[in-house]
């Protein structure tokens, strides 16, 4: 599978997160097995894998919550198992489960974490104002945190992870359990954060989610890396290209076309229209990464 890898060559200065042979075992189970990652600064990196692939374990190691069994990690220039405090200063981590306190207002919740990250008190008011604006919760400032909707809690959780202005953001399945609208909002939020220059590492088993917003993607299965690179690189490295289904008006007829890239899809559409056929719809047979994912992990799953 390594011939699929189209790893971008980047110099050391611009690497935000790196792992070398990262391994975490629970007894005989290899939750993470020799993971090598290098995540460029400022990129949005998607870690994709089914449940139990080792995504959360990897993130916990990067966030200094777990010590690896073997191998090493480097986050923002520090090894999380040697310098956890330095890593914590530079990393915002959002776990896959989110809990909120009861009897606490949104503002008080953020104040607590500002204090816990030693943000000077004089800056709290402005900081919290900015964060709430960023995650669009300004009107909820005085609401109780446990009264928020799931999507709002998720965004509050993100604001919490940003309290100390970290350079690296680690978000474990941030989109899980959100309705489509909340997902779109989350995606826009992450795009905004990328514009702010943050390195974002995000995991999901919902593949279509990550394809659009990630600059880099890695596919994880049973603790091993199956593929990594930009979504485009991986797609173009596939021998078969994309399958396009064209639906025509006035009939059950469908045309299946294999195309390599967007230009070819456009070409097919133009040719069909030029032929005088009324094209109703041009869709992909499988959404890109999902398809890729299914093919790559075939046989490995189960």
């Amino acid at each position, binding site marked *: 599978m390594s011939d699929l890898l189209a790893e971008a060559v980047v110099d050391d200065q611009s690497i935000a997160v790196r792992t070398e042979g990262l391994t975490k075992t629970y007894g005989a189970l290899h939750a993470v097995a020799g993971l090598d990652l290098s995540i460029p600064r400022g990129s949005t990196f998607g870690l994709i894998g089914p449940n139990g692939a080792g995504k959360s374990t990897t993130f916990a190691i990067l966030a200094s*919550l777990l010590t690896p069994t073997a191998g090493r990690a480097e986050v923002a220039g520090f090894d999380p198992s040697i310098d956890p405090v330095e890593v*914590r200063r530079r*990393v915002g981590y959002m*776990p896959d489960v989110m809990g909120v*306190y009861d009897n*606490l207002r949104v503002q008080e919740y953020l104040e607590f974490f500002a204090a*816990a*990250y030693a943000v000077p008190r004089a800056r709290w008011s402005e900081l919290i104002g900015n964060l709430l604006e960023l995650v669009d919760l300004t009107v909820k400032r005085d609401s109780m945190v446990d009264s928020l909707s799931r999507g709002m809690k998720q965004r509050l959780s993100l604001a919490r992870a940003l309290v100390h202005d970290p350079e690296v953001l680690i978000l474990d399945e941030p989109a899980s359990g959100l309705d489509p609208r909340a997902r779109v909002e989350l995606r826009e939020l992450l795009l905004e954060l990328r514009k702010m220059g943050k390195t974002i590492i995000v995991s999901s088993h919902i593949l279509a989610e990550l394809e659009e917003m990630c600059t880099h993607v890695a596919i994880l299965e049973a603790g091993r890396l199956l593929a990594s690179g930009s979504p485009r690189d991986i797609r173009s490295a596939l021998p078969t290209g994309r399958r396009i289904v064209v639906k025509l008006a006035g009939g059950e007829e469908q045309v299946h076309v294999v195309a390599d890239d967007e230009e070819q899809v456009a070409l097919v559409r133009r040719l069909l229209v030029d032929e005088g056929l009324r094209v109703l719809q041009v869709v992909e047979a499988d959404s890109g990464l999902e398809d890729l994912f299914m093919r790559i992990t075939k046989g490995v799953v189960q």
Partner: protein
Amino acid sequence: MKLPRTLNPVFARELRQRMRGPRAAIILILYLLVLVFIVQIVYFAASGGANRGAPSIETLAGVGRSVFHTLVFFVLGLVCFIVPGVTASAVAGERERQTLVPLQITLLRPWSILVGKLMASLAFVVLLIVATLPLAAVSFLLGGVEPIEVIRATAMVLVVAVTLACVSLWCSTFFKRTQGATVVALALVFLLCVGTFIAFGAQMILQRGQVQGRSQLLLVANPFMAVADVLDRRDEQLSASGASPFTPMQLLLEQRRERQRDSSTWSTDSGSGSGPGGSGPVVVPPRPTATVVVAPTTSGPPQPDAVPQPAVPQPAVPETVIRDVRPAPSNPILADRTAAAGFEPGVPWLSRVPFWVLSLLAFTVLSVGSLALAARRLALPKPTFS
């Protein structure tokens, strides 16, 4: 709520959560009502015999003492129940609510999280204890209680509260669920309060009534014994009306004090059988180790092999007379050495330390140990040196 700048963040947050709404105030009011009720009952029970005619100063003083001791007993018992209840959820509760991980990866050090939790769960308990003090003033009015006694008792109850909170906090870090943590914390407190008495009783039976120095050590970590030791003992004049729930513990402590006096004669076994009642000398085979003890150059009775220890006919002679006759220990260093060498089964230097000092020591060890273990469980990840 405006809170000061330097406040521990965990404490500040918990304070906001816990003190929100009327719950805390309602509990406080109920608590005070219960206390007033108890004071009334004790007052009438203790002064019942004196209702006809003007009670004497002594009787009133006895009533005052009864009221105060009962209050202390009640508050101490309450502390033993409430502290594990409010503390055991401290960390386990965050684990259950899935808020622990975000807290752990902040820049807060584990001990600072623990101290914040400790202060938060003790804040309310301290409030309850302080709210009791005005009621204790009733005993001032009646006499029989010195202000210093109130201060000593309050201080010791607070120390007990802190200790139990530390132990419960350790439970809270050790167990994943609040329920498990609470049950185990309560069990540990029960062990301290009741288990030590049971173990002590078992030892007494095994040693056929002999109270050895070491078995006394069992009771050092008992909250009720510790508080009993800082409360004034009952005087003979007050014996009728000055009943106190601490009386059994104070009798035990009285025994210890007598051993203390006896140990100045370099013989730990001789006095131990004779309580205040003077139940007669218990025949004990002489301990071979006693022969090794070098008697200092005093008029204390020499101890040859063959002479059984209870050679001095103590029960027959009033206690005070014996005390007057005996010289003070002339060479405590020597005594320490013999104890350290294990010659003295009763550990005489230990019995010379006031009981409450030993208790404070035990509580400190318990608190610091629990906190250290708890901090280790909160610290993540374990440092790797490979």
